């Protein structure tokens, strides 16, 4: 049953299996295991970023396609929910319409970009996606009447998904709409991740891997490489858009910085590389580590800085303001020691 759910793609490493189970248990029980708002928010971000990173890995790791437009698709999904909720009022119909419209817009845009540029060399495709993503980010800022511009949009979601909806107590934890909202995000993310796992382990996924390794060879067997690449781009865009919609439902706010910024694109790239390209489980490990580091590294460094206050230089190096430098060092070390990503390294360890 579990093997079937994982589409036959098992972790193939005891350490990796343990890590994945630990992450699954922590995410599934987050409202009951951890106290406070911040851990729940972190868990929700991890769920959403796992889907976002996995959908990017479908492109980069499995298809060998470098795209810089992934946050644009993420943003389309987020703005879809925001605009629908703003104009249709709070309700599940608005969330559904917003999610579907965002996904459709993402697929149409991905199809256009794909058909026009996937025939050319990979570097040109990357440049075109960068140009389109930048243009969309500028348009969102400029059309402030519709998108809220740089301030973004704040809107209401169904009351049943907010903290105002109190539903009693379970296992010593007060159950509110926020927890329902979290489980909506968790369940949708889990389903989307398993769906992506199914896609990469299907014959379609194998052809994508073949194209990544040698596109001429795949073409010479009879596969239309442009068609496969375009479909992969559309699937990836649609999934990223749904992840964006989930993010919008969770945050109840969207703005260019939270959904469209190039910094998020870089974060996604880092998560894919740290976790391991071409392994869906790499997205789980990469996103979890990165979001945890982003959220807690500053706190951890603050405590470490205080603890070493008596020593020379070290407290300065551990100053919380330098968290980005340490994140950079961690990234360099992980690429140096795990060139195939953490998952790749763990699987190699098993096979050797």
């Amino acid at each position, binding site marked *: 049953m579990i093997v079937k759910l994982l589409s036959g793609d098992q972790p193939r490493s005891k350490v990796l299996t343990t890590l994945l189970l630990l992450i699954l248990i922590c995410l599934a029980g987050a409202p009951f295991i951890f106290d406070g708002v911040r851990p729940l928010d972190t868990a929700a971000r991890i769920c959403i970023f796992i889907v976002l990173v996995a959908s990017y890995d479908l492109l980069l790791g499995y298809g060998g396609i470098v795209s810089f437009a992934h946050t644009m698709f993420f943003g389309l999904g987020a703005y879809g929910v925001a605009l629908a909720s703003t104009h249709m009022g709070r309700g599940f119909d608005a969330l559904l319409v917003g999610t579907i419209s965002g996904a459709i817009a993402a697929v149409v845009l991905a199809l256009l970009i794909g058909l026009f540029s996937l025939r050319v060399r990979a570097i040109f495709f990357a440049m075109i996606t960068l140009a389109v993503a930048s243009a969309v980010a500028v348009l969102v800022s400029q059309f402030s009447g519709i998108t809220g511009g740089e301030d973004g949009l704040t809107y209401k979601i169904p009351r049943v998904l907010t903290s105002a909806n109190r539903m009693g107590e379970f296992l010593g934890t007060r159950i509110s709409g926020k927890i329902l909202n979290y489980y909506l995000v968790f369940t949708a993310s889990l389903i989307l991740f398993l769906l992506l796992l199914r896609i990469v382990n299907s014959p379609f996924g*194998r052809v994508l891997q*073949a194209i990544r*390794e*040698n596109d001429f*060879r795949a073409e*010479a*067997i*009879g596969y*239309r490489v442009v068609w496969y690449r375009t479909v992969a781009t559309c699937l990836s865009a649609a999934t990223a858009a749904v992840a964006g919609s989930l993010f919008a439902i969770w945050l109840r706010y969207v703005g260019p910085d939270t959904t469209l910024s190039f910094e998020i694109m870089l974060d996604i790239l880092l998560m894919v590389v740290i976790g391991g390209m*071409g392994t869906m489980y790499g997205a789980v490990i990469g996103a979890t580590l990165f979001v945890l580091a982003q959220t807690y590294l500053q706190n951890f460094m603050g405590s470490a800085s205080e603890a070493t206050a008596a020593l020379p230089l070290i407290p300065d190096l551990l100053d919380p303001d330098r968290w980005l430098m340490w994140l950079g060092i961690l990234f360099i070390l992980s690429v140096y020691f795990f060139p195939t990503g953490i998952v790749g390294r763990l699987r190699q360890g098993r096979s050797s």
Partner: protein
Amino acid sequence: MSDPILSLNAVHTDIAQYHILQGVDLAVPRGQVTMLLGRNGVGKTTTLKTIMGQWTAKSGEILFDGQDITRMPVSARARAGIGFVPEDMGIFHDLTVEENMMLGCASGPLDPNRKAWLLGAFPALGTFWHSEAGNLSGGQKQMLSIARAMAEDRELYLIDEPTKGLAPAIVSTMAQALRELKAQGASILLVEQNFSVAKALGDTAAVMDDGRVIWSGAMAELAENNDLQERLMGLSMEAH
């Protein structure tokens, strides 16, 4: 004689600034093995790649089964019934042997009878069925490359030096598989430097020099005539 399955008429191909094929005329008869021979660098591999579409012919005409495929996309040529085995063991290293074989069937699942025949012809592939193709030995990779091209029934196979650098035992396995493929009615255009294999398999032969076919005829005629071999290729088959 029936219409050839493939014919090239005055085909010219440039690679960057180099004019490699300088008017190739070639006919591959149906159901026969045609050997494409010649010294290194005379354009044999470029001829196969031009037929398959990796290089586009600058001028001339390529007819496959009566259809002009000169400007056809590569995947369309493959779907029309041409199988290609490149010189560099064209397998997908990150995928398993099984996945490589499945990929060989672009139009549907691998036929069980065909799978049984291929695993009978290349038993090593069955042994390493679930292993990553990148971990196979050179000979096994070459077997996989050929078996993958044969996974689907094609009318014509273009095979580039399948026995290059292989142990004699693997060469005879390979030759036997090609014989069986021919017995099933397939046509084969084979580039081969191993003359004993060429003699054993070839029905017809075409010899290239300087980007052109300078002689074509029965393989037996070429194999028996040392003077002709010396004149066409600068060496005698007997020496090999």
